[in-house]
């Protein structure tokens, strides 16, 4: 119970920081102040909160769980590719978005799209697609919170209650503190996690009698493939490099880019981003793999047994039984199990708080959705003019309550593991939306109809993948179920982890077709006025 008490104290601290930010901003009920902290964040807060915004339950619990089942490949799949692609997109796109926000007062990406392509309702369609895709990301945070509190309290705090507490705390400080509170909390959380992540690695390493003996024992065991990338195909590995394109297309990241006081603040963020990823993901992945050696813990043994049965008998089982085993073998809680096994009680609490810090990153997504709703819908359709800016901010706050309650309700019913849920819907969808930004910022010839084609295609493709995976149950580990192979060419197949198109993850064709649609449809349709294009690119329209 002691670790749970420490975590509750941590949650109270986070709440205080959010409310402190609220007090500081009291009396200034301006939209730009509440939603963007008056575009005034300094370099330290900007780096750590932007990074913290991307560190969700997916990064911590999902990565160690994925590494527990699939081995070291997890780091190369998402972490190191993100370390290259995300800072690169912040450098190329984030800086430009910041400059446009400063020059023209944009507060959301849709405001920029509407202005850039001279459209109104098409902007609303893009808003709707973005909003629908963002909700799974919020759900991940609540599920991660429920899992963490449940494990750290020795199952005294049930999943539903843990999720409710996390949802409540996040909702409260976002409600009161807005962007300023969210950024401060994210900074605090990132620093906390970086410190405690290092402590966790040392404590668990010492507890296991040193990683050298554990790694060598694993190398000599039948599970040695976990130290390689054998369990993942090179096609799949390559596909994953498309996923980090989603980061810059996520509205909360784009909106966050607008909060920097000066463009110089992007410099440190771009340089240190890959190192921050290294510092957080490498220990998580390594510990996830090493957890396979902790066979004196019954929970770990149960997971390994479920994995073994799934691999050997999965093919002959009913889909429901397979799903049950898959859930049983999922390793989302292995880090917490290791902490419970090796860390003293008080330290397990502190480390649990560190994990909680990363898990609670859904705050930025909730705030971003609220910003988008109030700016792209409420203000755009006349609400701000009719009711004023104070009502606009209040509407944003009510929206925060509603969206959190909705996400919590869904989190209670969601059957997928944290990792799968995040990847399959939100990340692929946003990666598919990334051509919108590239076209808006770098191509004079892009049009609103090209943008509409990208948004509609993304929505259809995500829905198609979701429906397909609902209709066709996931096969047992091993060869995929081939669904369509004209002339012997495997076009579409259902894999144990999702869907494959020509052996690649769906995100690859989704992004490529998005880009193609933007080009083809834009070439066939009318361009915005020359004055509008000149506003973004200078000179005359070519």
């Amino acid at each position, binding site marked *: 119970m002691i670790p749970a008490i420490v975590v509750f104290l941590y949650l109270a601290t986070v709440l205080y920081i959010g409310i402190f930010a609220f007090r500081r901003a009291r009396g200034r009920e301006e939209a730009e102040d509440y939603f963007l902290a008056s575009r*005034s964040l300094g370099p330290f807060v900007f780096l750590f909160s932007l990074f913290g915004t991307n560190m969700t339950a997916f990064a911590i619990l999902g990565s160690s769980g994925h590494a527990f089942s699939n081995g*070291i490949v997890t780091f*190369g799949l998402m972490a190191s590719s993100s370390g290259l692609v995300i800072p690169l997109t912040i450098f190329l796109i984030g800086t430009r978005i910041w400059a446009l926000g400063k020059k023209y007062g944009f507060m959301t990406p849709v405001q920029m799209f509407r202005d850039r392509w001279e459209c109104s309702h098409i902007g609303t369609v893009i808003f709707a697609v973005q909003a629908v895709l963002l909700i799974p990301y919020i759900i991940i945070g609540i599920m991660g919170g429920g899992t963490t509190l449940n494990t750290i309290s020795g199952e005294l705090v049930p999943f539903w209650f843990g999720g409710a507490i996390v949802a409540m705390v996040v909702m409260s400080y976002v409600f009161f503190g807005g962007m300023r509170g969210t950024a401060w909390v994210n900074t605090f959380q990132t620093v906390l996690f970086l410190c405690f992540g290092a402590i966790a690695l040392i404590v668990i390493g010492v507890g296991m009698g040193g*990683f050298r003996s554990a*790694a060598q024992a694993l190398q000599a065991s039948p599970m040695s493939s976990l130290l390689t990338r054998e369990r993942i195909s090179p096609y799949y590995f390559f596909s994953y490099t498309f996923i980090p394109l989603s980061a810059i297309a996520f509205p909360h990241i784009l909106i966050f880019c607008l909060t920097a006081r000066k463009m110089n603040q992007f410099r440190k963020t771009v340089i240190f*981003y890959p190192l921050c990823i290294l510092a957080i993901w490498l220990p998580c992945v390594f510990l996830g793999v090493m957890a396979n050696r902790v066979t004196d813990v019954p929970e770990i043994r149960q997971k390994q047994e479920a994995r073994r049965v799934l691999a050997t008998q999965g093919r002959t089982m009913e889909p429901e039984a397979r799903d049950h085993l898959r859930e049983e073998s999922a390793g989302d809680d292995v880090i917490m199990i290791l902490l419970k096994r090796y860390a003293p009680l008080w330290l397990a609490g502190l480390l649990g708080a560190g994990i909680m810090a990363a898990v609670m990153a859904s705050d930025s997504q909730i705030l971003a959705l609220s910003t988008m709703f109030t700016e792209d819908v409420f203000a755009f359709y006349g609400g701000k003019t009719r009711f004023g800016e104070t009502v606009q901010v209040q509407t944003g706050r009510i929206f925060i309550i509603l969206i959190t309650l909705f996400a919590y309700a869904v989190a209670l019913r969601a059957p997928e593991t944290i990792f799968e849920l995040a990847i399959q819907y939100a990340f692929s969808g946003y990666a598919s939306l990334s051509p919108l930004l590239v076209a808006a910022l770098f191509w004079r010839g892009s049009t609103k109809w090209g943008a509409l084609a990208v948004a509609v295609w993304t929505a259809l493709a995500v829905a198609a993948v979701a429906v397909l995976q609902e209709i066709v149950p996931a096969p047992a580990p091993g060869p995929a179920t081939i669904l369509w192979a004209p002339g012997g060419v495997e076009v579409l197949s259902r894999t144990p982890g999702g869907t494959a198109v020509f052996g690649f993850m769906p995100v690859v064709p989704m992004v490529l077709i998005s880009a193609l649609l933007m080009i083809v449809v834009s070439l066939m349709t009318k361009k915005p006025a020359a004055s509008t294009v000149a506003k973004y690119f200078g000179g005359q329209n070519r």
Partner: protein
Amino acid sequence: MKKILLVVAVVALYILHQDIWFWRSSYLVFGFIPIGLFYQGMFSVAAALLMWLLVTFAWPSHLEKEVEKANPGEDEAR
């Protein structure tokens, strides 16, 4: 020329990410880090170095100037 070299460096690093040469090796660097993980860790350090090069040699300073021109005296106002 500088920009071309930077683009080449980005593409090269992207290709180096697909390190198929260590795919099936379980060799342990320093006796405990699997080589595939060690390589990808070093890749992250290389990515940080590349970002430093980009920020140093290809910084879009024209954007800063445009903003200053559009919002003169903003810093003093804060």
